[in-house]
């Protein structure tokens, strides 16, 4: 039996060699993706997963895992199995041809102009 400084653990009379067989895959509850909303009108932001036996239980756990502290008004849970995703083998679809920097905000060098304008305003 495990002897612990924690009296609860000693009382639980846990065998040193845990007799429970290793968990098989089906012993695990399935996962739900959790989306958290800080205030009404904001986007729900993906924050992580929980294991749960059904959607209600996933909500219960999501609240404690991801909304216990700070401000929250709403959470969504979605079965991970229901998420349709792209394949990592196809990651090359996200690669951008270097000549197309004009399509990115970083491609515009406007900070110099802005700073120059601010400076001019400050002088006035």
């Amino acid at each position, binding site marked *: 039996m495990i002897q612990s400084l*924690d*009296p*609860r*653990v000693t009382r*639980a009379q846990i065998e040193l060699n845990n007799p429970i067989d290793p968990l098989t895959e089906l012993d695990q*509850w399935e996962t739900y993706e959790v989306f958290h909303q800080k205030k009404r009108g904001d986007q729900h932001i993906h924050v992580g997963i*929980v*294991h*749960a*036996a*059904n959607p*209600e*239980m996933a909500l*219960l*756990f999501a*609240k*404690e*895992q991801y909304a*216990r502290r700070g401000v929250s008004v709403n959470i969504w849970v979605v079965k991970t199995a229901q998420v349709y995703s792209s394949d990592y083998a196809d990651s090359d679809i996200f690669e951008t041809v270097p000549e197309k920097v004009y399509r990115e905000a970083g491609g515009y060098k406007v900070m110099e102009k802005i700073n120059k304008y601010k400076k001019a305003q400050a002088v006035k």
Partner: protein
Amino acid sequence: MESAKELFFKMADDLLIFGHRNSEWTGLGPILEEDIAFSSMAQDKIGHAQAIYQILHEMGEADSDALAFNRPSSAFRNCQFVELPNGEYDFSMVRHFLFDHADQQRFEMLATSAFEPIAKVARKIKGEIKYHVFHADTWLVKLSQANEESKARMQSALNEAWNYALGIFEEGDFESDLRSKGIFEGEAALKARWMDKISPIIEKAGLRIPDESTWNPVLGGRKGYHSDHLDPLVLEMGEVFRLDPGAEW
């Protein structure tokens, strides 16, 4: 205000002992997420107890640490239901369900109490209790419907818990005084509200409330008569505090 004090002592003692008992699951819960959720609720209960001890302190009693950690078990006024060992998860979930519905109804009744400090606490902790009840209902229904074994275990836990749960509503000496002063409507009214709330959920879960002919409330806790389970709990809970009662934490 002896009547109000009696009410607040039994409420705070229920919540402290229940919170401490439930906290014994910390680290031993069935899965990580549930371990965190159940531990967090246990902590909430202790926080609710503290808020009520604080009211008692303002009414002239010792401070909340002394009330919680420095009284003999015979001074506690909790019902015997909350001091019982956790048993397995079936019993802990059934107790959580039965107790927390009573807790929610009690605080709902007190939210409009003429005794403003307790009404204020009731309004403040409403959301936390709502979550506790949501948690309890979800587990009760899920475990009762998972398979034959789980259903049988939940039914036998309910049978075992029932007469203890009825002991929550043991009447005190001041029921009519509390009613006439508008402080609290009383244990009988509370029990009626509780029955209305739990009956449809127990039915939805597919369980049966034990036959009324077998009802036999386990009383005595409100007068300081306890099972053998309370004393070790109280001693263990106050052990660190008593090493140095004046220590600043």
